[in-house]
């Protein structure tokens, strides 16, 4: 099987040089090599082919990702009153304006609180329910499905449902509290400045925890049963099994769930938009809702672009910190 070596055939060398297990296998490799030798195979040719194969994806990536990013940067240095107006260059004015806008700082703080709340509430509830559901024998499928169902509901619908639950006069929550004699605990869940962000976050986490629960259940099923047998022999109780076997066994899933919850937390918008629109008096304003209002209601596209960049930077920094922490954890 003499193969004339060409730059192109070198690429296939491992395949061509592999010992032929059967005669026909060797024949295929030889034919492939011959075809490449006879054809236009060359590093340049391969690169060109690869480029054209990737071109559609690259074009889409360029148009729908890179171009908007570039446009956002450009917009952040311009003053634009709306979609069709010609923008004028204002240098770093929008950045200065953002730095001096108290609502930006307020919404930034709220975004961090929201993020932490979502990770703890949705992630935590997902873990607790996964631990509970995975112990069930006959009804596991039912509860797994039931707890996952809210995740299938759109966030906007979730917002409407929970806004009605929180209605101070007719809502399910206050009515139930009053009926069971806990009327003193009724609140203005969406009007109390100290509660509103938490209340909306509960609604958002209710929608999200089902997915995290499923991921944790999958993680629990992958834990080696013999580890439980071993600690049982050592006399470990249920709590010790949780601490020394279950949680370490879930470490990989947990890091994935936390990163997913953080991404979802940063994207928090729909429930806030539907339930409070950032109010009352900016008490549930997130960076995302403020961006929307600036861009589409106040038509201040320059300042909105600055906040988009800020949000992106926030996501990048959080991801870097989290990845480093994860790497250190797995060492």
């Amino acid at each position: 099987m003499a193969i004339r070596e060409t730059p192109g055939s070198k690429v296939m060398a491992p395949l061509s040089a592999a010992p032929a297990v059967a005669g026909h296998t060797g024949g295929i490799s030889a034919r492939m090599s011959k075809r490449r030798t006879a054809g236009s195979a060359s590093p340049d040719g391969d690169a060109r082919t690869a480029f054209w194969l990737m071109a559609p994806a690259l074009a889409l990536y360029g148009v729908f990702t890179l171009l908007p990013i570039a446009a956002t940067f450009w917009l952040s240095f311009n003053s634009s009153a709306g979609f069709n107006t010609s923008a004028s260059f204002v240098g770093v004015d929008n950045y200065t304006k953002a730095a001096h806008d108290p609502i930006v700082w307020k919404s930034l703080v709220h975004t961090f609180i929201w993020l932490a709340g979502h990770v703890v509430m949705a992630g935590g509830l997902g873990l607790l329910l996964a631990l509970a559901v995975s112990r069930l024998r006959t009804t596991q499928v039912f509860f797994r499905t039931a707890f996952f169902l809210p995740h299938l509901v759109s966030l906007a619908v979730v917002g409407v449902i929970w806004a009605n639950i929180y209605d101070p006069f007719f809502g399910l929550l206050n009515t139930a509290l009053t009926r069971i004699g806990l009327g003193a605990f009724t609140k203005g869940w969406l009007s109390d400045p100290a509660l509103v962000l938490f209340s909306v976050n509960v609604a958002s986490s209710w929608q999200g925890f089902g997915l995290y629960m499923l991921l944790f259940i999958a993680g629990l099923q992958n834990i080696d049963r013999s580890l439980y047998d071993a600690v049982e022999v050592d006399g470990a109780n249920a709590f010790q099994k949780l601490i020394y076997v279950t949680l370490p066994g879930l470490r990989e899933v947990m890091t994935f769930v936390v990163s997913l919850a953080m991404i979802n937390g940063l994207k928090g918008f729909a429930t806030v938009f539907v339930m409070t629109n950032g109010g009352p008096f900016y008490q549930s304003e997130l960076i995302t809702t403020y961006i929307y209002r600036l861009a589409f209601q106040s038509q201040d596209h320059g300042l909105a672009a600055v906040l988009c960049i800020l949000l992106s930077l926030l996501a990048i920094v959080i991801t870097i910190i989290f990845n480093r922490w994860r790497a250190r954890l797995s060492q």
Partner: protein
Amino acid sequence: MLKFLARGTALAAMIAASSLAHAETLRMWGPEQITEPLVAQLWNGIKADFEKANPGATVEFMPPTGTISNGAVQAAIQSDAGPDVILTNSGIGRISVVKNAEQIIPLTDQYEKRGWKDKIYPWLYAELKGQFGGEIYEVPDGLDALGIWYHKDLFEQSGWKIPESWSEFETLMKSIEGTGLQPIAIGPRTTGSAGHLFGNLLQSASGKEVIGKALRREIAWDDPSVAAGAIRLQKLVEAGYIKKEMAGLDLDGASRLWFNKRAAMFVAGPWFTANARKAGYDLANAGYAPMPSDIKGAAMPTGGVGWSWLVPVNSKQPELAMKWIDFMLSDAVMKKRAQDPASTMIYPREIPGVEPPTPVLKDIFAAAAGGVGYNPSVYLPGTVLDTYFQVIQGLISGQIGGEEGMKQIQAKMAEAK
């Protein structure tokens, strides 16, 4: 025979092609309650009349996904697959947002060319002419007149009456609160609803002239003469006449409170008849009165242009859009709409001999006959509106005082171009 058939087919194809060439579809954004059977019946009738009068034209309704205030109109125009003509909540504040974004075309020449200036109240035309240096971007479809809605039966049973003076009004609210009812329902999560009550309070405390000056920037919003209305709202909240929990309600939530008679009063305009009908509320039981005031002549509804026709810059059928607006301003359509049970507004010109279809509308028309005050929600610049609505929420939730709130509005006014 075959030849005859072929010629016939060719002729039919030519006719079909020619009619297709003339077929025009006008995509219309609105009206808001098109999904309501009574409203749909009225609008489908108007559409059929228009299509009959304009052979080849088809009108297609696009149920609105929102207003200028929440960016829905802007997004629809920007999509380039949006409407050819728009009916939406208007007023200079909202119109300036889409006008500044260069999303709508000026209609000034059409007012002359088609005689629209004679089809609306002269004072309304003068107001529109004075807004953008002589250019007009909207054609008013309906006017708003915001005042207090109350339950006639409840008031009769309790011997209550909407009084003339503010101090008597406070006494009334105290009396209502004593019965366990909410004196006034408000849903400030819906920004418009927040503005309705607040505008009424500003008008009641300061009068039309002062609020007009503040809107024209001849007087600061934190001037005590303007801030009095905000302080009034602060005091109503402190006294418990407006519950802080109301800050978590939207228009639907607050309306529900009123329709179920757990609240005695509600500030709304003629459009509230549509909400009432939807909720199954007996409109014959609804009473209407302007917000009481100690200033002579200041007890009047607030409002202004409530809904207008706009033509987007990317309208595929601008000429047909003008024909449609022309048609809507015609006597026949105006009368048809004003007499229809689905009617929910005050029309932009006097329509002699037309009786409003519901008693409450009759009350509203009577209250507005002497003119209406300003509803700042529709007059403030778009960049100030967000602060304006958030301040109202802050006042109702007890997070901010009236004076401080008005300072924040004034700061935004100073920034606005």
